[in-house]
């Protein structure tokens, strides 16, 4: 686990580490287009593991960070 796990946000506060969810939230999300249920479950462990890592890497305030990413035109 590198230093980036402790990276501070711009307000100088420790980044909030989202708690790993151990309960699957089952709701009325439309089924993803991929039919590959079998393949998905085969690699579920790896994906969960990966998501836990990404939780620690993602910028802390998603809403604000995404909103502030404004580019000028390019080619």
């Amino acid at each position, binding site marked *: 686990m*590198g230093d980036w796990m402790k990276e501070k946000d711009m307000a100088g506060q420790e980044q909030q580490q989202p708690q790993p*969810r151990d309960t*699957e939230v089952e709701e009325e*999300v439309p089924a993803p287009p991929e039919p590959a249920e079998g393949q998905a479950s*085969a690699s579920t462990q790896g994906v969960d593991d*990966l998501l836990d890592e990404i939780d620690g*890497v993602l910028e802390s305030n998603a809403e604000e960070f995404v909103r502030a990413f404004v580019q000028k035109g390019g*080619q």
Partner: protein
Amino acid sequence: MTAGSESALGGGLPAGGAMRVMGSETEYGIHAPAAPGANATMMSARVVQAYAQVTRLRAAGGAETRWDYTDEEPLHDARGWTLERGQAHPSQLTDQPPVLDAEAVALAYGREELELDGEDESGSLLMNMVLGNGARLYVDHAHPEYSSPEVTNPAAAVAWDAAGDLVGLAAVRRLASDTELPAVNLYKNNTDNKSVSYGSHENYLMPRSVPFGDIVRGLTPFFVSRQIICGSGRVGMGQDSSRPGYQISQRADFFEAEVGLETTIRRPIINTRDEPHATADKYRRLHVIIGDANLSQVSNYLKFGTTAMVLSLIEAGLAPRIEVHEPVGALQAISHDTTLTTRIRLLDGRRVTALDLQWMYHEAAAKLAQDTGVSDAVDGDGHTHAVLERWATTLTQLDSDRAAAATSVEWLAKLSILEGYRQRDGLQWDDARLGLVDLQWADLRPEKGLYYRLLSRNRMQRIVDDADIAAAVTEPPSDTRAYFRGRCVSSFSKDVVGASWDSVIFDVPGYGRLQRVPTREPLRGTKALTGGLFSRHREAGPFLAELLGSAPAPPQA
């Protein structure tokens, strides 16, 4: 022009397959989280400046030089005319150096005084560099852009394009150590998801004798469908992402025309900008603007490799006879369907999927490559066989084993993370965290960039070794004129005052005027042709004297 005929491209490369002079041009998204309103052109100039400082640290005396604008011709149209300057959109005038002085710098950050240690003698910031690897790093509109050196094959295209990401990373690191100004992030993506797009272009050298109409007909169905192997994936539908969802391509929704000169407005599937940057009556440099920027090496490899092969088909007059009904709509319909089942209409009445279209091109390309011998596993050109195999494998996996395809196809790899979040946390497509995953996928910092997190877990396949990419940051390709350009910059930087795709300009003490060495043949200036010259001379004067065939002692001014 089949059966073992020599390519017209300098007579050096085998024709009929995936080898061709080509290059990439990547505009990076740029963002300072601590200063969201900062001027983008200014920040981009800081990126170029920061890299100049990095190279000065790396090689005493520097390893970069200025760009020579003499041969830029952004208003030349491949269809045979030139746009009047007065009618051009200001963003099309790319042949004049932008001027940015210290005052503009200060104003951009709302400060009156600002110490600029990277400032040059004239008081202006360096906006434009030629690198020791033969690439160009510069400010294009409001983005830093890395244009790779010319290479001859798709694996090298991947290496020198990925080297650009390391160049950007080095600049990001340098700026992060600046205590005065806010840190800057770079993103290898193509949209801010708020209606703005910026490009990732490819260029391919072709004989000028190929009629442009053949290129348009042969490429359009291919470009409409190739996104399924090299799209980077995007959260959001429509130019402004007003509709929630996920689509295959970053760029598809920003295209509005079939053919045209513009690259910033009314973007066309086939771009007609005609700046050969080489002997103009022999070559055309096809400028491709429809691609997504790729971090996935396999997607990038296939983007260059398959496109090069389709151009070989067009040159041979053997492109599949297919015409897509309303190509712009078809491009977007395909991008919007991650199940790959959407059928688009051909003018002959057939309805085909993007996979069908890709297989048609694969079949034709495989046949031409076999007939010319370039795809032979042993005696071929050493590249085409691998491209054909990888292309077929990827298409097969997209059809029947998407988990396997997700280790190579960029939009599927990104989708696997997004679906993980959607399932684990029950997120809807308009949730900001999914937008953040999309954005942060492309962050150049390996500790932050989600692509790099997957790569470090070996969940993404590699085409080239990390060591080769690292070497490509400083070393030019050996088999194009980029070798000569790059070695001039790294060996004689204090005497090289400018360079461009087709020239290197020296200012050597003792010569009365600048010496401009033209490099108009892309397959000359190679290591084989000029390597000895570089190893024989440490000083620019004798080097130039031998190169230009004059007496070893330069004339007195």
